[in-house]
């Protein structure tokens, strides 16, 4: 009885996301944006190269920054949000305060966005919408750790706390891959976990989706490619949704799951 009162006294702590934006989520450092870029490009592809930008790529410990003909891009799928670029070049890089960082396309993680990928994105979105049409009311998630640093598991587990309370949205975690619709994978896909990961994927019924949770799962992150690691899980299972972050926050993971099953309000379903 004492426990019931303890629970009630707290009031409602659950977020209204995705129905409305969440203050905490909106204040969270979600990604890096590139300032003053993408606009100076002339139509023929030649640009006003900023000399200060030469060598700017070496700022990044994971090689997420690329500089070509004066155009600087950041690959969110490699970025671990260490902020070194923001500190060294506040004129060129800034933290983007939004947790809605999940994308359906690997190239969609690169900022500033390359326009040519839009058509491809439409095709992907249509294909995905068709595939997940039966999952809109409820989706069962199977988590697999394929070589994480352990922090991703905390953020995935946080989805079950009263603040995110994903059951309210019809999202459930399941133990058996036979009951799972969505495979949520953290970690860089080590040699040891590649087999169990593939077996889990194969055991899932159709339709099935794969969500790469975190920069390590997308690209290998800082651990990168070594004698027992590879550049993310993409070579083991086909990825449908990419959620960058080191680790991705619970809001980002939630955004990714909702994006995958097409349950996001239109404005945020990029």
């Amino acid at each position: 009885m004492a426990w019931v009162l303890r629970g009630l006294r707290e009031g409602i702590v659950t977020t209204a996301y995705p129905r409305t934006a969440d203050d905490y989520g909106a204040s969270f450092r979600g990604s890096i944006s590139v300032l003053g870029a993408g606009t100076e490009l002339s139509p023929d592809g030649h640009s006003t190269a900023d000399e200060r930008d030469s060598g700017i790529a070496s700022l990044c410990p994971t090689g997420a920054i690329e500089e070509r003909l004066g155009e600087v891009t950041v690959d969110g799928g490699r970025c671990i949000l260490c902020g070194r670029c923001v500190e060294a070049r506040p004129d060129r890089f800034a933290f983007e305060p939004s947790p809605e960082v999940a994308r359906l396309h690997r190239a969609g993680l690169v900022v500033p966005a390359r326009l040519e990928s839009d058509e491809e994105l439409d095709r992907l979105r249509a294909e995905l919408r068709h595939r997940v049409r039966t999952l809109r009311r409820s989706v069962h998630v199977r988590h697999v750790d394929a070589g994480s640093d352990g922090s991703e598991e905390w953020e995935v587990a946080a989805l079950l706390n009263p603040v995110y309370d994903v059951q309210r949205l019809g999202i459930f975690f399941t133990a058996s891959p036979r009951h799972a619709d969505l495979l949520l994978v953290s970690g860089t896909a080590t040699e040891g976990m590649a087999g169990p990961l593939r077996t889990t994927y194969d055991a899932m019924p159709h339709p099935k989706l794969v969500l790469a949770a975190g920069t390590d799962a997308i690209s290998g992150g800082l651990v990168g490619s070594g004698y027992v690691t590879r550049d993310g899980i993409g070579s083991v299972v086909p990825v449908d949704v990419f959620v960058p972050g080191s680790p991705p926050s619970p809001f980002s993971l939630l955004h990714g799951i909702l994006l995958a099953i097409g349950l996001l309000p239109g404005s945020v379903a990029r």
Partner: protein
Amino acid sequence: MTGTPVAVSLEPELLAGAVAERVAGGQRFVGLFASAHDDGSTVIRALLARRGSLDVVEAHLGPGADEYPALTPLVPPAAWYEREIHDLFGIEPVGHPRLDPLVLPLDPNEQWRPRPGAFRPNDTFRPELDLSALPGHVAGEGLFTIPYGPVRSGIFEAVEYLVETFGEDIPHLRTRVYYKHRGIERRFGDLGFDDGVLLAERVEGTASVAHAMAFCHALETLAGIEAPRRAALVRVVHAELERVASHLDSVIRHCEGAGQAVAYARMTLHKERVQRLRARLCGHRFGRGVVVPGGVAGPPLITPDEALRALGALEHDIAGDASSLMDTPSFLDRLRGTGVISSEVAAVHGALGPVGRGSGRTEDVRVERPYGAYGFLGFEPAEASDGGDALARQRVRLHEITAAFHLAREALDELGEERDDAPWRRQVPATDGVGFGWVEAPQGELVYLVEVEAGRLMRVKPRSASFHNLALFPRCFGGDILTDFAFIEASFGLSIAGVSG
């Protein structure tokens, strides 16, 4: 600050005897680490704790030497360390009772070894692994093996427990941690200091602050500098909040296992609030990017007063729920007498952190070898309990949560009185040599060995408490049955990432 470790160099044949003698003399065996060098030689270092510092006993194996007399027969807790050295360096500890693969199950015909420490810039070799089942060790009619993992039922890190059982009792259990071996130790090779700390934060992601601190302490002692006072205070705030979050995680897993739905919801809510407070302080929910070599990256994003207010509310809420939880019989019944580690076993193995303190050990690195601001903040360690069961470990964790809040508050108070123009960070001059750093991570004593040459990291060896304690895990199933498994695992509170490397 505490003293720099003193190294004694011996012939490989004398290593085991010398270490055993020191252990018999009352020193605690901390670990056994190897480093490869470019000329094919290897150094093996045994670390022993004494009050104030660590002692190092080392032996050099020349190029081509691939064996030495094992320590394990004389010093049992060296067993896992020697298996790891065998996996990573191909060096055989002669006389080791059971040299099964631990972190890297290479194909038996595979000659290649990662040999961290030896620098090979363009080595893209990928060895063949042998992930097939290890032979069984227990035989009998009706005995069978239940494999738990590596894909677990629930949101867990990848690890496999092979539970050998007749159905209820668990006479034997084996642990396989190699599934998520990431080759982290070799990844450190040739990194600069600033990149090194980013990787250290990802060795064991749930103890990022502790790992960054131990790594930076190693570099700082090597260079003979100390972080500025107010940087040391900020480090304490983050390290103690990390401890609160980690201990709450263990409590949460207990509540989940015992079906305490409201307590589970309450504790997960508290943990979320701790993570959010950490993010308010630095912009990252796990405190990453705070600790840098020579100090901290910058001032906290909120004032000490704001942080103190948030801490006070959290502490009050957690204390209320914790005391209700420890008054709930249906919860306590599941923990009492579960997963007993006797104080004798804990003493021989040198059990660390809350696992050790639940079985009568009193070591706490914050007191034994104080570092950073712990040297001047008034810190009284939580009293050890000698119950040895999951309940004793739970009590230790709850005490430590209170103590952690106390320390964080004290550090914030001091921080408010620091001068505004005091530095946050000092330059760490590149100094060649071998440095050691240590902290009391949430899981227990964490040690870093760092070798520097010309401003680059040649060898970094993190030793997490999880690695040391997990070896004890199979030892506490004596009187327990299958349904106790979840509680025993939760009460150890380990991170597999820190074990598998």
